């Protein structure tokens, strides 16, 4: 009982991870500032006490002006600040797409390396909860097509904290996508100690080792992968789960190594199917790991459909444990 409580107390969820990472880094470096819509009132729950602790100059509520907000952060970064911008919901990024592509991603390259852009953009993948089509996008694959950005899609609180802290210290622009299906208990993990928990970009984790098939999970997809792995273990199928954690840079060696071992791969990606991160992983695997592939790489993604509102319609379009199990069986020839 006491042990259980202690273990519970030592869990770190998504919102606390953000709260801690941002607070620690703002304490560490005065140039870090935090801006977002409805931040001071802490509407999204990860900015408690920031206004008191860091003052109005460093904690700012943004108007509904996403394009200017993103360009503002780029300019501020080029002029010596290290902004974190909380864009709240990833669907709002479209309003600022030109600023992401033309200013954030291109400025350093176009200007021959004169610019540095230490800036982090945070946004939730706000699907699976009845928000309907205008709030439920999972657009990170579109940004993977844009050179010059780094992209993280963590699958648990501790990773989120460690990657976000790394992102804030990075001199390059980072997009931090937060899968809202992990806001609650699904996103919890053992709380790291101290305020120096840094996870490097481009290093995958392997939350479960196995030998029959590799399941690469992205964000909330990792959970489905792990759940499926547990079910399949009961049938004697040994699943290795790989979580790339950052999509740019991607830890290709880790993914290739796992598939070299298992010869089979399923990718679980909450994004829309066409031109998804899963597509990229499959394409890369076939290009670089063809010799080790003993079965087709299958993608378990969201269907190419907008997100319908009705609770009776929505969930079926996303990846699920059941879909992962079915895909694993298929690559193992266990069913047609």
């Amino acid at each position, binding site marked *: 009982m006491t042990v259980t409580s202690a273990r519970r107390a030592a869990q770190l969820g998504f919102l606390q991870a953000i709260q801690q990472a941002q607070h620690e880094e703002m304490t560490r470096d005065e140039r870090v500032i935090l801006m977002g819509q409805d931040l001071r009132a802490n*509407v999204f729950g990860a900015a408690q006490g920031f206004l008191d602790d860091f003052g109005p100059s460093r904690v700012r509520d*943004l108007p509904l002006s996403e394009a200017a907000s993103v360009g503002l952060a780029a300019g501020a970064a080029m002029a010596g600040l290290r902004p974190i911008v909380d864009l709240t919901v990833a669907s*709002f990024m479209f*309003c600022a797409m030109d600023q992401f592509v033309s200013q954030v991603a291109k400025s350093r390259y176009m200007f021959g390396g004169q610019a540095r852009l230490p800036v982090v953009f945070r946004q939730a993948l706000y699907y699976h*909860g009845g928000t309907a*089509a205008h709030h439920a996008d999972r657009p990170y694959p579109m940004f993977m097509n844009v050179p010059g950005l780094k992209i993280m899609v963590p699958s648990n609180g501790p990773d989120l904290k460690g990657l976000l802290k790394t992102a804030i210290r990075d001199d390059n622009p980072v997009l931090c996508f937060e899968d809202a299906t992990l806001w609650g208990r699904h996103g919890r993990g053992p709380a790291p100690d101290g305020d120096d928990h840094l996870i490097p970009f481009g290093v995958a984790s392997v939350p479960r080792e196995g030998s029959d098939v590799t399941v690469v999970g992205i964000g909330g997809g990792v959970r489905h992968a792990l759940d499926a792995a547990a079910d399949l273990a009961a049938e004697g199928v040994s699943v290795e789960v790989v979580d790339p954690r950052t999509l740019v840079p991607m830890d290709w060696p880790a993914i290739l190594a796992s598939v070299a071992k298992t010869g089979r791969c399923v990718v679980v990606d909450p994004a829309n199917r066409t031109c998804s991160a899963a597509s990229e992983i499959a394409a890369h695997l076939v290009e670089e790991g063809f010799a080790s592939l003993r079965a087709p790489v299958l993608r378990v993604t969201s269907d190419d459909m907008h997100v319908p*509102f009705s*609770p009776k319609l929505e969930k079926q379009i996303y990846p699920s444990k059941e879909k992962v199990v079915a895909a694993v069986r298929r690559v193992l020839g266990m069913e047609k």
Partner: protein
Amino acid sequence: MDLKRELALELLRRMLRIRLFEEATIDLFHAGELPAMVHLSIGQEAAITGACLATETDDYMTGNHRSHGHPIAKGAGLDGLMAELLGKAGGVCKGKGGSMHLADFSVGSLGESGIVGSAIPVAVGAGLAADVLGTGRVALCFFGDGAANEGVCHESMNLAAVWKLPVIFFCENNGWAVSVRATELTSVENISVRAAGYGMPGVTVDGQDPVATYEAVAAAVARARRGEGPSLVEARTYRFHEHAYGLRVKNAYRDQAEVDEWWRERDPLPLFRRRLLDEGAADGPVDAAVLDAIEAEVRAEVGAAVEYARQSPYPEPEEAYRDLYHVEEVPA
């Protein structure tokens, strides 16, 4: 008051429809029957209704996340709207749009938008179609004080102005964008002053007064129909409930006293009722029994809508996979 009885009573009826419809959604929320939070227009009924009744049913309209009031005031049936909020097959969008994305093309409602500001140019486009096709229609575009700072709002106003399109930009300035006071996000007190930057008329009216709003929008509509281009009408109003019903904001951001005062002094429904009784209509007095009857009718309508929505089945799972594209029916 200057309005004829029929119009005045219709204003009241539609304001009541919004109020009682939304009160019903609150009940549904507490009963656990709503699949998601809803953004209520309670407190803003006069502004919305005054604006909509200044247009015809076949005029166009677009709106935003605070969306129930717009189609209701434009004349949409309550059944389909309520069923939509519940995600039912009988919903006006077959359960696929939900609270933030209502639309009823049969009354010119081309859609509300969960992306704030995003439907503003759509209204301008509808105005363009009216202009090119010579239908004489106008487009009414609802947006909030927060949305006024979106870039696309600026682009849309300039475009409508330079092409003299029949558009009425209607800003519901309710003083807040979620948790932030409008004056902390917007560099001017009245959004309407921006109209001068587009060479179009801009006016600020009391949004708790349906008659003032109606008259301002009617003037803008007349101007638009004469081919003289767009106008900006700003209605000062107030959001009586939390940003979204069911949302719990961590830090208090607005004084309860401020909210209470609006409820007490500036609730558009009792204000308008009192005025109808005190002043009467242009063509004669109005008595309480008539108003009570209207309220009873609306209450029944709303009750029926809730019943309809509850009875309506959920959509079949395959419904999720329809309507992505228009598919030509193959003639038999």
